[in-house]
């Protein structure tokens, strides 16, 4: 059914509103009062919850409701990620606004019985603040201070139903652009909004669109960069899975503004669920005439093709991505020419990140002023962070730019796991750096992160605690960039290898202070000479850890110890006088290097010890074995 014009779109929207009406009830209605309303049970289908069994829960819920004849009154949906992945599988019930955490298949009968039949909340499944032990049925502290723009529909609508997207103002921004704005006005709104690329570099989106539009050509292309290579970031995936139409709509807007009739979404092959959602969304959009020719009766023709990555981080870099779409090795090329001048098949091409695109429809609808009122002076709007690592509440967090790290980690994130001490936050993935405690109160935006030696990057935010060795973290990232280097240029192909070798030496206790200087010098030269962003930023994790945690490097080199107790070669397993001589450890030692007789203090032969830790594991209860 092709939508011929805006009126048809609006009519469809009016019709579809009932689909999500229940979820739109603003304030919490008490469970009792809500009886009689059709309820919506939203079972998180995000990557985390999905992995821990949410599809099964949804299935069981449906079966149970069916069995009890409640299918008409209670409907089950599987939307995208709610953000609070740590507590998954999560369930939200509308309009009651009850949120259940860590639900398991066994809980299903209880939920149905208690919540839907008895009308009581299942107390034990409500979120409990670990410190105050207070339970929350709604307004979880995790969501305090968050503002969802890019993720506005994620977890809220059923992603495989275009009607729900349309009901949630979907394609309204496109209609506005097509009939009430000129392309230049669209670009002006973007420029005024202050939206900057969320893919890493933070380049002003409006300006990029303008450049692309200005390049003379018979064809231009729009590419959505859905390669999401940062290991430990999954916000783009969540948007693609939870709200694919917002990306399609934004690409259509870009097509209209830039003068392009073809778009490509370059998506990682590792994201099959996202690919499926996109396929469904594209098919539906075509069916409704929202992709194709004469869209909504306008003169815009635009279609979108999916292109799959094949496991190369560097293909997130835009020139490499373009080469990959063209069917060749995903090697970057020198800029200029920029894709906006000469991109896909030599034509002007605008490459935008998923999250960037997801911001665009609301900006068009609500205006530049609204968006630019959020955030800091130079970084407007919100940013989604994938909060992970040693933090209590792992998940997706969307906060206004300028929110402090402390707020994200300690308030939203609920602090450090197991009450350990915060050591650093790693942002920007392999291109970024580690931020020490003293900068916890820095309001984070593009500039401030760069100023303290890190990067916004795509929004990976990994929390590290006292048990993380910073040299080892630097080595981890170096190994990543070394493996992912495309191998084209000397600086990165050989340089990252040499950096990794020096780091390995240091973690093995054979590094020297000269190595440290050599490594630092090489880092600066690689930044200066590498061909693309991968190499240019590859030394960042080393430079930032050297800057803030130099003492840890020195400890490895001079004292031959790993202060965090991570680097195996530098560990010494020792048996203290707590030993009760139970001989448990002796049996487990693969090297047979523990000696001692029953009820006597045992000793480890350091020469032969492999540092495998098996003995310590055995002695966990008594705790007689230490390592340092």
């Amino acid at each position, binding site marked *: 059914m092709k939508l011929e014009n805006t009126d048809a779109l609006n009519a469809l929207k009016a019709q579809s509103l009932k689909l999500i009406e229940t979820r739109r009830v603003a304030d919490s209605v008490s469970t009792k009062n809500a009886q009689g309303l059709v309820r919506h049970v939203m079972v998180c289908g995000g990557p985390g919850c999905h992995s821990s069994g949410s599809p099964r829960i949804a299935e069981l819920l449906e079966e149970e409701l069916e069995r009890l004849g409640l299918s008409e009154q209670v409907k089950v949906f599987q939307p995208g990620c709610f953000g609070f992945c740590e507590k998954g599988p999560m369930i939200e019930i509308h309009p009651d606004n009850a949120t259940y955490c860590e639900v398991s298949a066994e809980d299903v009968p209880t939920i149905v019985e208690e919540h839907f039949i008895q009308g009581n909340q299942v107390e034990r499944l409500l979120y409990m603040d670990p410190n105050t032990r207070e339970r929350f049925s709604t307004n979880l502290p995790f969501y305090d201070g968050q503002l969802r723009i890019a993720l506005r529909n994620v977890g809220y609508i059923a992603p495989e139903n275009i009607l729900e997207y349309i009901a949630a103002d979907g394609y309204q921004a496109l209609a506005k652009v097509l009939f009430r704005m000129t392309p230049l006005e669209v670009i002006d709104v973007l420029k005024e909004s202050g939206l900057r690329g969320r893919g890493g570099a933070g380049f002003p989106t409006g300006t990029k669109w303008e450049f692309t539009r200005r390049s003379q050509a018979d064809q231009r292309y729009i590419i959505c960069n859905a390669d999401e290579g940062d290991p430990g970031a999954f916000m783009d995936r969540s948007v693609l899975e939870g709200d694919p139409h917002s990306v399609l709509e934004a690409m259509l807007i870009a097509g209209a503004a830039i003068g392009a009739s073809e778009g490509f979404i370059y998506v990682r092959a590792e994201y099959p669920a996202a690919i499926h959602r996109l396929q469904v969304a594209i098919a539906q959009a075509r069916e409704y005439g929202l992709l194709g020719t004469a869209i909504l009766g306008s003169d815009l023709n635009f279609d979108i093709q999916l292109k799959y990555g094949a496991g190369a981080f560097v293909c997130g870099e835009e020139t490499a991505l373009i080469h990959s779409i063209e069917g060749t090795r995903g090697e970057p090329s020198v800029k200029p020419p920029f894709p906006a001048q000469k991109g896909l098949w030599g034509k002007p091409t605008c490459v935008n990140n998923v999250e960037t695109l997801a911001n665009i429809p609301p900006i068009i609808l609500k205006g530049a002023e609204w968006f630019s009122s959020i955030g800091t002076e130079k970084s407007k709007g919100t940013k989604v962070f994938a909060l992970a690592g040693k933090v209590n509440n792992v998940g997706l967090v969307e906060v206004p730019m300028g929110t402090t790290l402390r707020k994200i980690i300690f308030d939203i994130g609920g602090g450090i796991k197991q009450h350990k001490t915060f050591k650093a936050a790693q942002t920007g993935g392999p291109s970024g750096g580690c931020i020490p405690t003293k900068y916890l109160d820095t309001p984070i935006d593009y500039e401030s992160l760069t100023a303290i030696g890190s990067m916004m990057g795509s929004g990976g935010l990994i929390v590290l605690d006292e048990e993380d060795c910073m040299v080892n973290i630097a080595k981890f990232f170096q190994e990543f960039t070394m493996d992912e280097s495309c191998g084209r240029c000397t600086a990165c*192909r*050989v340089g990252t*290898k040499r950096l990794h070798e020096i780091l390995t030496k240091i973690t093995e206790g054979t590094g020297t202070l000269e190595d440290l200087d050599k490594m630092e010098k090489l880092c600066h030269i690689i930044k200066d000479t590498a061909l693309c962003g991968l190499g240019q930023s590859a030394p960042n994790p080393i430079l930032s850890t050297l800057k803030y945690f130099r003492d840890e490097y020195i400890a490895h080199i001079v004292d031959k110890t790993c202060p965090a107790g991570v680097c195996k070669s530098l560990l010494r397993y020792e048996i203290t006088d707590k030993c009760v001589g139970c001989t448990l450890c002796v049996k487990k030692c693969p090297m047979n290097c523990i000696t001692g007789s029953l009820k006597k203090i045992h000793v480890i032969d350091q020469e032969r010890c492999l540092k495998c830790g098996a003995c310590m594991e055995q002695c966990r209860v008594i705790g007689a074995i230490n390592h340092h």
Partner: protein
Amino acid sequence: MDIQLTINDISLKVPEGMTILDAARTVDIDIPTLCYLKLNEMHYNNNIASCRVCMVEVEGRRNLASSCSTPVASGMVVKTDSLRAIQARRTMVELLLSDHPKSCLTCAKNMDCELRSLAAELGVRAIGYEGVESEFEIDHSSFSIVRDPNKCIRCRRCETMCNDVQTVGVYSAVGRGFETVVKTAFDLPLSKTACTFCGQCIAVCPTGALTELDQVDKVWKALNDPNQFVVVQTAPAVRVALGEGFGLEPGTIVTGKMVAALRRLGFDRVFDTDFAADLTIMEEATELVHRIQHGGRLPLLTSCCPAWVKFFEHQFPDLLDIPSTCKSPHEMLGVLIKSYYAKTLGIDPKTITVVSVMPCVAKKYEAARPELAQSGEIADVDIVISTRELARMIREASIHFDHLKDQEFDHPLGESTGAAVIFGATGGVLEAALRTAYEVLTGETLEKVEFEALRGMNGIKEAVIPIAGRDYRIAVIHGLGNARTVLEKIQAGEINYDVIEIMACPGGCIGGGGQPYHHGNMEIVAARADAIYREDRAKPLRKSHQNLAILGLYKDYLGEPYGKKAHQLLHTSYTGRKKI
């Protein structure tokens, strides 16, 4: 539109789109480069900016810029000699060397290696970074080329040459990260690929990663074997390039000195492949006339370039009946030495070793083709060495090349005309053929023997030449990519010719893969072409059919051109091969 910029405090104006590197060169600032190579004449442009050696500082830029690939911009302020740029450059070379064998002393490229000279120029005195070095097997599989990927610096010049210019596509960058290297499909040895052995990848490789298969010792051995009668022949293009190996100006003609040097080296006879070039004209011209008269398939394609022969065997196996069946000139001469000349001398052909000195590495492979041997065992040519190898032999033998007195080739297989010598340059074969065809077909004397339309570096040259009432449509092609373009058009029925000359190398054999390295300076190749035409002008006879020794050969031994005996000795056949 001109762009105004400043390089090292020199203010200059250059056209828009120019790179910093080229702009700097206009004011005599030469920024070192390694991967970058542009050969305009061949439409070869290796601009992948991989080595990161040409780095310069640009005011206001966060990082350094690679000058080979960064276009100038208005108001740009460039420093090519800042400490930051110099250190970066040196570090790039150090990093390359950290993953490179330090075996310059024994390396075939030694004095011609761009990496080695760069290290010297940049004052690399220690390799600051050490670590794992790549370990690849050396590919000795072919008769022409040795590939040592351990010495590869991933400049991709060979890949660009083989893919973009020759369109053979033997190489690609393979793997990722530190393991990346330029390789063949599925790591096949070169001998199992569609490589034509044109050697153009060797010609552009800046290091010892690609070199010719060295046959010098085999020649020494033959020369020192009292039971062998060792005959040498030299191709036309060698005499105009060999001098470069001794520091002489490119384009110096050293025919006489070369002959003298070969005698000094101990060859029993010094013959000239030019003789066989004249012979080729007789055969090929007759073959053309035969095809025209008997309604044979046209165009006739020349077949004196073995790289081109192997190219069409792989790429156009359905066209095997259109190339001329003539063997290449040195093979013709080889077989004559071992038959006709052996008979004259009264010695067993098995005791004769024929050594060809060629501008070419494909001819090494060609000599080993089984069909190019009498009764399948006596190879027409035993050993092929390149111009470069000969230069080295001469040095090895402590011969003071430029002090040598000119000497003449031996008779009778050393006789030749000007038509033969121009075989060395693109267009020469057809020009020589026309000189003969005209006179044979019209019975008149050709006054103006130069066919300018067939000369020069244009990749595809065409002409229509009327002879005796028939228009001959001819084309001259050099570079295999150009050959592909034309052959595909012929296949598609879009164009046709009567005869086409095809040479694999840029400029023909003067630009062969076995010639002294030009290091990207195509003026050297142009100077060799000049010399070829000078040599032609200096010859008393300039038409193949005037070569009295050739006429004698037909009379005494071969009979008719393109006749039975000639067929048996001077013609060959082709084999269809797979594209790999």
